[in-house]
């Protein structure tokens, strides 16, 4: 089955081509939806088969490379269109195709009646293909195709409602920010390639080859430069500080898109990339530190913003940013498999949350549309009490919320707690570990708070929607609820794959599975880790308990503020207006970027064009011409028409000539 790995991206590609080229003619939504969904489902099936086969193999044989065709061969440089199958990519393809299939299915219902139905499915398929290329690529360049390809699809899908200016802006912003990241990625790639080539005559960008040669890399130095550059790439794609602002805006896209791209798959690409190149990253303690710090900072920063947003999807978006921060924190402290694990569980519950919110919006939209109201269907202030109208949505949403909040027994708990524990216990960053853990814990508290705030505002309490619209609220059809249920189940059960050892109930399958991938990275990391006393089990238990307590506290606050004393939030706002405004306006980061980058760039462009290009450069060019023309005018009038003047010029010429020779 390994040989047929190319089928995985091929199916969505076919789906894309059919829907993209002929979708407009097909018209029938059922057929279009079926093509799109079956395409990705086909990939899912192949992925499953591959997974089965891989499980059957001994750990050391679980690496397979399939060269499809040579792509760019030039000079020393070689990049093939090739796929790499190993436990890591295997997990990723499972997540992508699995969650992808569900979201495709969901979209059939959600996008029903939309104008560009075929377009949507085409893009979605294209996205899946790109994402699969990204995770399957056996060298950085194939990964980069996927890397930019998902960016492209993200652009297309965010801008799906292209007639809305905000959607266009958001799409562009997403792409450009991703490009900033790509800039880093490319420089990182160049640096690594150049270093290996010029120092060891290994001209490669192939992951396996780099891995084999990774022992040659020094600690720090050039590796720090390269990995920091790669990390810039990761921050772009995975919406970390400082390149995170595009993700909340990306919610302009249809909700399934948010679920698939901006929660489950694409945004995790950065995490995946670090995991893929863990053996390089880990060689630079500085980069690891930066990753951990940025991850933790993003986690808390985004979480704070999430507490004050009213748009249901925006809350989830900030939550995503925050959760991605957790993943980076994991990567930064060397807890690679924990990070990937969180990536997976997050994919489940966050996809479920997004789809749930989509279900809510769908219903709200329908209701508001019926009464011709222009109220915002996504604003939580218009919701409330929806649990009775939409029970399935509510339950799955609640389950996922519990998962993300980190309540024991649900997937989020296992993964997040693993990260926090590793942040505390991994000896990579000396005494910083406590700080990292602390920040993580606080962020977790915030997470619990804003997620339950979301649940309470949406599903509990009084229904704040226009009473006329209320009767139109309804549970979504099965195509929508089935994926919700599946994902909800996974949000509960997914965690048991990677249960921490200390709980002792199940072996940590997940970590074992990924062990061959991260073996080398852990070995390198071990070289410089600060070996202190090994933290005890007791401590681990204690911290685990603490994190549960923290989560509960968060939930408690949310309960107090949004269910029990609903006037509290308003009071809070009144007490700290400045703080609230800052948080509500996302700490003014967008404005800051506008001020620092966007506006100066535009102004500079204007200046260079009108001021420099036209005035200076063209001024010089035309100036030369004008000077010549001015001379022309002067010379012209020397030609007075009088014979004696002409004769004088001749005589003068003679005198000068003679004079020069006589007196020289």
């Amino acid at each position, binding site marked *: 089955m390994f040989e047929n790995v190319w089928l995985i991206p091929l199916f969505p590609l076919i789906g894309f081509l059919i829907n993209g080229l002929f979708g407009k003619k097909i018209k029938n939504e059922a057929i279009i939806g079926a093509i799109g969904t079956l395409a990705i489902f086909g990939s899912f099936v192949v992925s499953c088969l591959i997974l089965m086969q891989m499980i059957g193999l001994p750990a050391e044989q679980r690496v397979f490379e399939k060269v499809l065709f040579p792509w*760019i061969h*030039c000079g020393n440089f070689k990049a093939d269109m090739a796929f790499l199958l190993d436990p890591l990519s295997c997990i990723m393809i499972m997540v992508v195709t699995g969650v992808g299939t569900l979201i495709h299915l969901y979209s059939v219902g959600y996008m029903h009646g939309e104008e560009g139905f075929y377009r949507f499915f085409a893009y979605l398929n294209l996205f899946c293909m790109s994402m699969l290329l990204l995770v399957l690529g056996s060298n950085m360049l194939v990964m980069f195709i996927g890397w930019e390809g998902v960016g492209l699809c993200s652009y297309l899908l965010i801008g799906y409602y292209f*007639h809305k200016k905000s959607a*266009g802006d958001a799409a562009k912003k997403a792409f*450009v920010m991703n490009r900033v990241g*790509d800039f880093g990625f490319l420089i990182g790639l*160049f640096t690594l390639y150049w270093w290996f080539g010029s120092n060891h005559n290994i001209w490669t960008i192939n992951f396996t080859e780099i891995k084999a040669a990774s022992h040659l890399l020094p600690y720090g130095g050039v590796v720090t430069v390269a990995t920091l550059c790669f990390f810039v790439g990761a921050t772009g794609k995975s919406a970390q500080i400082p390149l995170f602002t595009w993700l909340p805006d990306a919610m302009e896209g249809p909700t399934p898109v948010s679920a698939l791209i901006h929660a489950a798959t694409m945004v995790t690409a950065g995490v995946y990339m670090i995991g893929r190149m863990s053996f390089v990253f880990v060689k630079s303690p500085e980069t690891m530190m930066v990753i951990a710090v940025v991850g933790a900072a993003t986690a808390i920063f985004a979480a704070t913003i999430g507490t004050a947003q009213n748009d249901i999807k925006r809350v989830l978006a900030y939550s995503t940013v925050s959760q991605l921060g957790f993943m980076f924190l994991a990567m930064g402290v060397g807890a690679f498999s924990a990070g990937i694990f969180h990536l997976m569980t997050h994919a489940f519950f966050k996809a479920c949350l997004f789809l749930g919110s989509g279900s809510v919006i769908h219903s709200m939209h329908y209701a508001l549309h019926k009464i011709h109201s222009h109220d915002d269907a996504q604003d939580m202030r218009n919701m409330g009490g929806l649990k009775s109208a939409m029970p399935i949505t509510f339950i799955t949403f609640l389950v996922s919320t519990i998962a993300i909040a980190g309540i024991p027994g649900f997937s989020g708990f296992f993964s997040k707690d693993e990260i926090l524990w590793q942040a505390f216990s991994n000896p990579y960053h000396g005494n910083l570990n406590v700080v990292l853990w602390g920040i993580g814990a606080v962020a977790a508290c915030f997470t619990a708070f804003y997620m339950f705030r979301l649940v309470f505002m949406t599903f509990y309490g009084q229904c704040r929607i226009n009473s006329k619209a209320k009767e139109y609220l309804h549970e979504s059809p099965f195509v929508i609820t089935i994926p919700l249920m599946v994902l909800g189940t996974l949000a509960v059960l997914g965690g048991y794959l990677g249960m921490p050892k200390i709980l002792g109930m199940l072996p940590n399958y997940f970590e074992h599975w990924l062990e061959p991938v991260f073996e080398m990275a852990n070995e390198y990391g071990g070289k410089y880790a600060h070996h202190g006393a090994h933290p005890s089990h007791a401590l681990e238990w204690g911290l685990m308990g603490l994190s549960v307590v923290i989560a509960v506290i968060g939930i408690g606050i949310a309960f107090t503020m949004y269910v029990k004393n609903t006037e509290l939030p308003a009071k809070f706002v009144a007490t700290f207006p400045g703080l609230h405004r800052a948080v509500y306006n996302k700490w003014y980061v967008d404005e800051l970027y506008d001020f620092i980058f966007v506006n100066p760039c535009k102004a500079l462009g204007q200046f260079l064009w009108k001021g420099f290009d036209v005035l200076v450069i063209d001024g010089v*060019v035309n100036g030369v011409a004008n000077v010549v023309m001015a001379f022309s005018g002067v010379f012209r009038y020397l030609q007075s028409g009088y014979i004696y003047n002409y004769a004088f010029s001749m005589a003068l010429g003679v005198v000068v000539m003679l004079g020069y020779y006589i007196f020289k």
Partner: protein
Amino acid sequence: MSNVLSLTTFLPLLGVLLLLFIPKDSKGVLRNVTLAVTALTFAVSLLILNGFQTNAEFQFVENVPWIAAGPFMMRYNIGIDGISLWLVILTTFIMPIAVLSTYTAVEERVKEYMICLLLLETGMLGAFISLDLFLFYIFWEVMLIPMYFMIGIWGGKNKIYAAVKFFIYTMVGSLLMLVALVFLYFKGMEAGITDFGLLHFFTLKLDLATQIWLFLAFAFAFAIKVPMFPLHTWLPDAHTEAPTAGSVILAAVLLKMGTYGYVRFAIPLFPDAANKFAPLIATLAVIGIIYAALVAMVQEDVKKLVAYSSVAHLGFVMLGIFAFNVEGISGGMLQMLNHGISTGALFLIVGFIYERRHTRLITDFGGLSKQMPVFATIFMIVTFSSVGLPGTNGFVGEFLILLGAFESTLRWWTIVATSGVILSAVYMLWVFQRVMFGELDNPKNQKLADLNGREIAIMVPLIVMIFFMGLYPKPIIDKMEPAIKKLVSQVRVSTPVAQAQSIQPVVALPAEGQAPAPEAGGTHETSAPAASTPQGTTTAPAVNPHDAK
């Protein structure tokens, strides 16, 4: 078959003769005949592609005496190698598309227009295949004339200014090059070179000071044509005013003359000087990339924006070329082709909407996606090709350029240039957004028709090439690689300094260095003198008697 190169070059000229006999008013016939001629030229050029052997030699060489008087000996000496091969193909490929694009765009003076197009094609092809410096110069100048008329006659409001500026600007540079050319010839004469054959001059050893002056003259001429910052201001004007086909050809092929000039002439003729000036030129290239991107960002006229984007793209090409390694130069060459295709396509796209709305102001548009979905799709693909999205052609070229430049001594330049990648996304997507996205609120835009069959037919080959070159550039790279390796060895042979400075060549050479070194030497011994001496002796008596007396 042996003179298929001449056939390709002069077929359009025959087409001109044919057109002369077609009455002015039968526009359809004129168009179709021109299309047929260009298509036939393309077909013939495919024969070249087919017969091309993948090696570093010049092939399809034709070498006959042409002018022999006084100290000079000019020959009709043509041939192609991997570098010029693709540019020839690009030219013949773009021409039918350009012709097809004029079917409705040009309604007046069709005959003259078609004649200009065909003359231009001959000029461009001639310049790409010339192996005689003098012959090259002739074609180089000849190209100006039809382009001048195309801009001047069929151009927009400010056409005269643009046309004259284009002509004189280019002329200044090329005339200085002519002086350098003649000077070089006399230097060569001292060393026993008897004609303008390019290959002889590769073996000529010049001292650094001479090289610098000559290089400057050549580089100046080519820099104007590229155009490199700060010599670029003629380009936006020319592009804005030129009719669509003119812009397409200007962008797709004419600008390549400049970069081709560097690759074929300026660098291998004066390797030491080229090495010396590499940092300067790279600096200008990088400034060009950033500068043009920033300026493009704030343009109000779509065509001008695309014109500035050309400046940025060609900045990349220059950076790649001056990396002096196989990756960089291959990338540069690829980017030349890519730019030809994508920017050509962009100009066609601008032409489509201009034909419909007679305006190119970005603010006059908005929301066209709704009305013109096919157009939107094509525009988007081309936009992303121009932005350099992986999977499209633009990426391969840009990537190799940056990679090559990064490996070379131009590392810091590369880093700055790479940020141009971001800016290109900014301005291209911004214009795309403003034109295609948003509400379709301008009533004039609400009745726009989507692309018709002919227009789609124009774009399809370009789109196919965009993906083909993006996904499978290997055949293209393979065919040009030997020639590029030879070029790299030419640049490096005489630069002990550069070799000492960077460790890279030392490491890089074991793989490639051994192979091309004897090969390169062999080329000179086998092809150049063997081809030219027989004629040299036959024509010598015609010249020598006067010298003797």
